[in-house]
Each structure stands twice: as C-alpha cells, then as structure tokens.
C-alpha cells in the first residue's frame, strides 16, 4: 500500500496515476527513498538498494546496462554474489586508508628562493672583487669597496646556510611524500580491486537470474505500447532504445521490490496494467 499526499490531493493504493499532477519524478523518488525533505509526503515500504537502479522507468535518464539491471533484480530477490565478503573487506580497508598530507611545494619554493639569492650574491662578489682589483691597480681608494665586499660575503654566508637548511627540509618533505605515495599506491590497488570485484559481482548476480529474465522478456515483449513509445528523451545525450527499455521493464518485473516503482515513460495506458505487467507497486507520472 502506497500513500502519496500532494498539493493536488491524496492518492493511495498499489497502482497510482499521478499523470495529471505537476509532481516531478526526482521529488517523488527522493520522497520514496526518504532522501531529502520535499513537498511530497509518501508512505510506503522502505526501498532496498536495488531500488536505486530499478525504481525509475524513464526515457530521460540513461538506462543502466542489462547486466546492472539483472544484478539489481537478482539482489532484490535475495541473491548474493560469492565475491561479496572479499568486496566488503576490500572496501573496509579502502575506507580505513588515510593519506597523510605533505606540503612539498613550500619546501621547494624555499630552496629555489635561497638558491636564486645565493647565485645573485656570488655574482655580486665577483663584481666587487673585480672592482677592488681595478682600484688597487690604479691606487684608488678601496675602503668603500672592501666594506661592500665584507657585507656581501657575510650575507652570502647567511644565505648559504639558509639554502642548506632549506635543502635538508626539502629532503625530509620528499621522504614523507614518498611514504605518502606508498599509501596512495595501496589505495589505488584497492580501488582497482573493488572495481574488479564489483564487475564480477554484477556478472555473477546477473548470471543467476538470466534464464528467468529471458522467460519474462518473452511475456512482456508483446506489450503493444512499446511499439508506440517516442524514443526521444528530453536529454539529447541520452538515447534510449526500445530494447533498453524492455530490459528495464523486465528487470523490474523479475525483481522483488517492496517500494513503488515510478514510471514516467509513457509505456502503459493505466496504472493497473502497469502494476500487473511489472508485478510491483507503481506510480505513473
């Protein structure tokens, strides 16, 4: 039993027709899934995870792959994939990984700045030495150049010390960054493993249900309305074929979904026939 309260009135039953209302599919799905507060109030059985994949029959969204649809249907019927424990363990490890934050850029900048100043001071030293030499050769006064040279040498020594310290600090940060990359490497491996297990879980779940799916496909395939559906989604990027749509309808029919399915594709003439064809609670939009 599903109850939907909208500004247009209250609808209840297992096959609701809301096509005359202005209710948006996204709001309705959010209300069913209890995701965000909407203007709608929906009372129904709580959706299970497969509802995310199968809960909306629409021509405006990309339809998940046949394998994803079948896997969701199989999960809704209580099938579990043999890879599930390994998947859960990998996912847990992945969530536990923490990559330490290392700021190497500041250390690099410090080395570059100190190096640049050091080079500048060395150049200045060479110039001053040349000038001093020239003044000595011409017996000119050398005191001011000597003072300049002494000051520059002192400054150079400071900057040299700073450059060495900066280089050591950079070495330390580089080592910490290298350690952090070990964690990143591990994270990437785990991500790949999780993705691989996800694919294998989908494949094995889909396999479990494919013969039932094929049988049901034959019974739904004769649905007259499928022939008259306009396969031009509102979104130009999405191209839905009648085959995709049929796969989705069959997956919903095969699935065991407690929460209502929102059908915004104009495939069915009325809510009752939709509920019957899909073997589920249905809300037509």
């Amino acid at each position, binding site marked *: 039993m599903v109850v939907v309260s909208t500004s247009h009135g209250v609808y209840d039953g297992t096959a609701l027709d809301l096509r005359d209302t202005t209710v948006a599919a996204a709001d309705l799905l959010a209300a069913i899934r209890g995701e965000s507060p909407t203007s709608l109030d929906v009372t129904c059985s709580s959706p299970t995870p497969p509802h995310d994949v199968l809960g909306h029959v629409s021509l405006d969204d990309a339809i998940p792959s046949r394998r994803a649809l079948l896997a969701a249907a199989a999960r809704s019927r209580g099938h579990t994939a043999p890879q599930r424990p390994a998947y859960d363990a990998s996912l847990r490890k992945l969530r536990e990984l923490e990559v330490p*934050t290392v700021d190497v850029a500041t250390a690099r900048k410090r080395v570059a700045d100190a190096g640049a100043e050091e080079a500048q001071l060395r150049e200045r030293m060479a110039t001053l030495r040349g000038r001093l030499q020239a003044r000595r050769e011409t017996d000119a006064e050398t005191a001011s150049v000597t003072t300049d040279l002494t000051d520059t040498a002192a400054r150079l020594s400071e900057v040299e010390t700073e450059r060495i310290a900066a280089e050591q600090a950079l070495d330390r940060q580089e080592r910490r960054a290298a350690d952090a*990359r070990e964690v*990143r490497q591990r*994270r*990437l491996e785990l*991500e790949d493993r999780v993705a691989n297990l996800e694919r294998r879980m989908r494949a094995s779940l889909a396999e479990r249900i494919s013969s039932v799916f094929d049988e049901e496909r034959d019974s739904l395939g004769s649905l007259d309305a499928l022939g008259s559906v306009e396969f031009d989604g509102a979104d130009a990027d999405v191209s839905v074929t009648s085959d995709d749509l049929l796969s989705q309808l069959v997956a919903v029919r095969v699935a065991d979904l407690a929460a209502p399915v929102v059908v915004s594709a104009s495939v069915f003439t009325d809510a009752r026939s939709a509920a019957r064809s899909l073997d589920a609670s249905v809300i037509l939009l």
Partner: protein
Amino acid sequence: MLLVVTYSKAARGTLRNVCRTHDETVVRRFGRAALFDETEFGAFLALRLREKHGGDVQIERTEPLNEFAAVAADVRDAAEAYENRETPSTPYDKFAAGTDHPDPSTLRSRDL
C-alpha cells in the same frame, strides 16, 4: 625528460586524456605514468596535472645516466662480469663472494 606518475583513478584518467591530446609532447606512456618532453609545454602539462590532483601526481625530472661519470668502475665491472657468468643460475651474492666485485649490501649502502 619529465616523469609523471599518477596515484589515483581520477589522475590516471586525466593523464590518459592529456597523453591522447598532446602526443607531440608525450615521449612515452606506461599505464599510469608518462614521460613528457623537457620543454615548457611539458612542464605546463605536468603542472596542470599536479594542480588538479595534488599529491596524486608525482613529477620527477629525469636525465640519461652516464655510467662513466656517475658510477664507480667496480660497479660497472661487476655488472659486466655477472652478465657474462658461466653458470646462469648463480645468484649475484654467491658470484661476488671471494672476488673483487662488491657484495650486494655494499652496493646498497653506497649512493650514486
């Protein structure tokens, strides 16, 4: 050359796209790493990756190894002798024992 190594799926994806778009600057691509030309454009591409993906992108500047300038003669000799050994199954530590060739732990403790 600039060696760019990525450490996340997102960074790997961006590197793939960059390599596809700029094959004139990409010297070589290996899975989730690549070598870029050592030009300002190569640096620009590498820095864009780092800007987008932070620590998930490692950038190293590489140079060819001149073994005659950077590697001690005993190491070069050892490599040459070991690759020309008579019994292929002899591991290097056995091969080096009792000869003038440096043992593996010595080699590991010496920086280039």
